[in-house]
């Protein structure tokens, strides 16, 4: 086939407007959030959810999860392109920074005898199990959308997708979990999120090559 023939075919295929990859990923994120919410059929939000919104630790926990979701979404969009664009990656430190602040406040305000209790909480095992489980459907959505991209570094793009999926999963999980202490979040949520991110990085390395 000569190149002119190929161009002719490409032009015919190019007669429809193209959806930018950023928009495709945001749509996938929307779908991911809806899918993660379906899990409420299995695991309900905590019973005191309405009152919880007005308590500082719960509000802080939610703010933290939303910060992680937003910042990892920004980074994911950047990793989907063939030119590596590290200049916005710094936003990823916002959520850990926020969490560190929360931990410090917690350590100052809570007597040291209670630290261990706050750290271990009631639901550590649940947290480690449910956050990855709740991330599966969002991750599938995001990776599928990312296949349409051309990531400069497939492994990095996979990690970013994993982080965002975990953030969505963790946000939904946070609504069901009675443990609100920043100590608990630092100890358990972080482990669950790292597991999902690392797994997705390895999936991405294979799946996202183009």
């Amino acid at each position, binding site marked *: 086939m000569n190149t002119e023939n190929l161009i*002719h075919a490409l032009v015919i295929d190019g007669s429809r407007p193209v959806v930018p990859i950023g928009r495709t990923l945001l749509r996938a994120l929307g779908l991911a959030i809806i899918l993660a919410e379906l899990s409420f059929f299995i695991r309900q939000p905590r019973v005191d959810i309405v009152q919880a919104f007005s308590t500082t630790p719960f509000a802080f926990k939610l703010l933290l999860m939303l910060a992680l979701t937003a910042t990892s979404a920004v980074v994911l969009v950047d990793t989907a392109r063939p030119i590596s664009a590290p200049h916005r990656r710094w936003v990823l430190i916002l959520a850990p920074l926020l969490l560190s602040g929360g931990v410090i406040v917690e350590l100052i305000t809570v007597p040291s005898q209670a630290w261990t209790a706050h750290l271990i909480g009631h639901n550590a095992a649940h947290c480690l199990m449910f956050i990855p489980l709740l991330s599966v459907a969002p991750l599938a959505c995001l990776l599928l959308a990312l296949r349409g991209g051309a990531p400069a570094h497939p492994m990095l793009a996979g990690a970013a997708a994993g982080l965002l999926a975990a953030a969505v999963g963790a946000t939904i999980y946070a609504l069901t979990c009675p443990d609100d202490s920043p100590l608990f979040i630092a100890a358990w949520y972080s482990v669950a999120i790292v597991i999902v991110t690392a797994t997705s990085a390895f999936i991405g390395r294979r799946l996202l090559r183009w």
Partner: protein
Amino acid sequence: MTTADPPERERHWAELMDQSLDGNTEPYQRLLVLLTVAVRNAVRSRVRFAGLDAEDVVQEVLLALHLKRSTWMRGTPVGPWVAAIARNKIVDALRRRGRRTEVPIESVLETLGFEDVSGQEQAHDLERALAKLNPRQREVVRAVSLEGHTAQEAAARLQMSEGAVRVTLHRSLKVLAGHVQCGAG
């Protein structure tokens, strides 16, 4: 038609790209012809010594530019984006030949050249990859490439709806890109 002045060329490419992403085929045709010339120059210097057919790689790059054009961001330069995609495909092609070669994007960008050669160059990988399509897909691809039909003409000839031709074509191009990538050299 091509201009030797990079900023001028960049503006021209960006303008054509902008219009192409809205689904305008006339600017897209012009853009692809310009990019082919540029890519061919960048590819030739790199794959000749590896014993690869340069035009095969050029076609692979074109296919990737087409399928990945959603990753170009409006308002950003086209040249570096083209170079990044071309580099990925050149590295792929060399790797399939068992060569581990570092190809810096900058060097590809520098050689996105202006040497004007006709588009009559023959290549073979894609032709071979056609065998991986199902019969219907192959007919559609042949109709709009080798036989040069429009989607409408192809539809009439193959007794399909125009929409079905477009869907089949798009799917076929993805399959071709996948096979060209996976198929051992």
